[in-house]
């Protein structure tokens, strides 16, 4: 059961946090925080990390058991079950939101005539197969994808530098400080990183000697670097107004790249490398939800739920919003507060466990 090593978890968390955020959440945060986006991401990263560490602290109370199981010893069965259902619901909702983002991205940019449902089914099938393959497979996939993305970043950096960036704008990162905008941006960025609280649900799969705090910090730092490596150039290339109005500023930025007139545009190529990272993120969310549901339902094997739950995610993603604008509005206006409420639930367990004292996370001896 103890499959995931520290390095695997760092890579998994990095891919998990950075993948969607770098692609789809750049525009909302630039719109909200303008020049303060960089600061907002860093502050959001720190706050999100605190949420993750709180979740990890709860998980460490009973390292051998899933949170879905031992949670009831802390707060009681009738409080725990609704909370776990809420959390599983949140993770599936989050997975649907991510999937919808991918669907819209693909439909707008690459497959305009393909029905959305067909794309959703293909993605859902991929997610279901990944979830069925188990957490070990997810962790190993993260390793491969991490290195591919790292390689990509190394290769792309010189090409990105070839694009004309408005470097004097860098000054504005410091001079245009606005507390309100920074706070709003931080509120937006915190749940991106806080989403990594999913580690609470897979904790029994981690190798015992893992120093979870160190791992979480490295995961947050790596993902922050990756997100900023996309955010800052996009901001410098388009400025906060234009970038905030674009749906996919990173893609627009990459689109303007040229490789010695050999390839006209790189964005479809980047899509190939980017989609697997997103699939992995969605799979981890679905896996965490499925494993919790399986434990709540006292199922020995979670695998029978993989396809049905993935199908629900597919259905939900298709009906998530009427259009991309509505989705973007939801992600900017409502989602951060909703996500934060959900991500802070483990802290409730932590408080109760602290009040109840040692052994609160274990069954009472008969």
């Amino acid at each position, binding site marked *: 059961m103890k499959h995931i*090593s520290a*390095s*695997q978890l760092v890579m998994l968390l990095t891919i998990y946090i950075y993948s969607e955020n770098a692609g789809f959440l750049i525009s909302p945060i630039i719109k909200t925080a303008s020049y303060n986006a960089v600061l907002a991401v860093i502050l959001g990263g720190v706050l999100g990390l605190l949420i993750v560490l709180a979740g990890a602290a709860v998980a460490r109370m009973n390292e051998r058991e899933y949170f879905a199981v031992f949670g009831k010893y802390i707060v009681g069965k009738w409080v725990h079950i609704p909370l776990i259902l809420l959390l599983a619901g949140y993770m599936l909702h989050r997975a649907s939101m991510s999937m919808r983002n991918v669907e819209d991205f*693909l439909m707008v940019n*690459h*497959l305009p005539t*393909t029905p959305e449902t067909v*794309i959703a089914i*293909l*993605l859902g099938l*991929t997610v279901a*197969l*990944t979830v069925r*393959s*188990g957490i*070990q*497979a997810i*962790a*190993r*996939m993260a*390793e*491969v994808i991490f*290195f591919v993305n790292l390689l990509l970043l190394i290769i792309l950096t010189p090409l990105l530098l070839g694009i004309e960036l408005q470097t004097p704008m860098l000054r504005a990162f410091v001079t245009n400080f606005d507390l309100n905008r920074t706070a709003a941006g931080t509120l937006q960025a915190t749940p991106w990183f806080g989403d990594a609280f999913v580690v609470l649900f897979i904790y029994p799969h981690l190798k015992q000697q893992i120093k979870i705090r160190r791992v979480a910090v490295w995961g947050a730092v790596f993902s922050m670097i990756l997100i900023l490596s996309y955010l800052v150039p996009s901001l410098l290339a388009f400025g906060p107004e234009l970038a905030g109005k674009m749906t996919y500023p990173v893609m627009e930025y990459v689109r303007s790249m040229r490789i010695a*007139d*050999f*390839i*006209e*545009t*790189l964005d*479809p*190529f980047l*899509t*190939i*490398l980017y*989609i*697997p990272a997103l*699939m992995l993120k969605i799979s981890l969310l679905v896996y965490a939800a499925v494993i919790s549901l399986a434990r709540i339902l006292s199922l020995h094997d979670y695998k029978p739920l993989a396809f049905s739950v993935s199908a629900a995610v597919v259905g939900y993603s298709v009906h998530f919003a009427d259009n991309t604008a509505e989705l973007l509005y939801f992600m900017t206006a409502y989602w951060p507060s909703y996500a934060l409420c959900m991500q802070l639930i483990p802290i409730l367990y932590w408080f109760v466990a602290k009040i109840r004292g040692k052994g609160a996370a274990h069954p009472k001896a008969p």
Partner: protein
Amino acid sequence: MFSLFRKPKANIGKAAKTAESTVQPAPGKELGQRLQWFQEKLDKCVDAVFRTFTGAGGRQYALVFLGGIADLELLQEDLINPLTSEDSGDKTAAGPAADFSRLLITSCNVSVDYAEVLQYVLEGAVLLIIDGEDRMICYPYARFEKRSIGEAQNEVVIRGSREAFVEEVRTNVTMLRRRIKSPELKIQSTYIGRHTRTEVLVIYMEGICRPELIEEVHHRLSKIEIDGVLESSYLEEFIEDHPYSPFPQIQNTERPDTAAAALLEGRIVIFTDGTPIALIAPVTFPVFFQSPEDYYQRSYASTWIRWIRVLFMFVSLLAPSFYIALTTYHPEMIPASLLFSIAAAREPVPFPALFEAFIMEIVFEGLREASIRIPSAIGQAVSILGTLVIGEAAVRAGIVSSPMVIIVSLTGISSFIVPSYSLGLTLRLIRFPIMILSGSFGLLGLSIGIYLVLLHLVVLSSFGVPYLAPIAPLKWKDIKDTVIRVPWRLMKNRPSVYGIEPTRRLKTILHNDGDDRD
């Protein structure tokens, strides 16, 4: 998780001849009755020979053997002559044959079990039955016609040994012994196949190979209950971890140096009688991109060649899919001038790119398969006719476009760059579903295709060793012989995924100063 820790069956390691045989009831004390038992068992076997003769002391003997296999000269000189000669000293009641300390050959088998003795006879031994003596003696006088050691046909190297294994396992063992002169080289025998009774040898280095791995190999072999084993692939399919996967999970080789290198890494080599192909387990995916020559040439060159192999593995797997995706869904990626020429070439072709690629790929697969069977005298002519003439004519007739011919030819050649033929076959096969995905969803389909293949690879294991190791899970120490091939003086340790600790390979590291000697 892994099934490495199961206990093996107790009978493994012993001569498996006793595994199925139960002691048969004695047909009678008399020589005639005993001989008749064998005659009944070998009834309608035209090659079976039964002879009785009287020895020097007047004692009756019977011989049972298979004509054509038994070495008659040896039989006459080493057995019949001493028994019938007046000088043999057979003056006592017991006689020389009954005096087992005077048996002429050390590897004789003595048994009272009729079924066991019959099995020896079927394997080519000469059976001697002595009147009034319960014990029967089997002399290993078998002389099979066998192929001499030849040059490796499928794993050719420029620098390195030319030898290849042959069909006879014992000869193969000598080739390994010649390379590894260590008492730690252990060889265990077992017999598989109800009718074929094929000898299977499990070979490993004690102290390097994991004991659980040895037990697991024996355990899996012992579970095989089949009527016959005619090639090592039979065993391969029975003992691999994921039998329904298209990817090979056990390496095979015809080269003794490859097998010896595998043994020194802590892996197990399995020989099957009747085939020159040895199995090596466990194996990881990167091993399929390694050629024996990588270790014989300079490390820079070997590293470079490895990268080329990986690059062309991707070309072999993805080139048609990439072409289909680009021309069908993402023409904006192609530079305008190139796009115009592709469009011009595709203009007369009535089929979509996916269909066109399918036609060409399947025709190419057909030509390749045919080229193996076409007699060599006309092979070249037919190949030229098939590839050049048909290809040219197809383009002129507007059935396929010339860029597609280039893509398919490149793909076809690329699939042979991977040193492992089994993996090459797999890549050829899984190319088609990825083509369908690309034809349906463009680069998204391609991406999903790669993702699913990767997902399958991370799930696979070979005898408990992760298939994608040392990449996923990452083992930094083992990268030195995966993505790159470091010089031998830096190859301090064996790959950590196979053997047991300590994995030290180099005892000390030489530091040649490289100064000129004036």
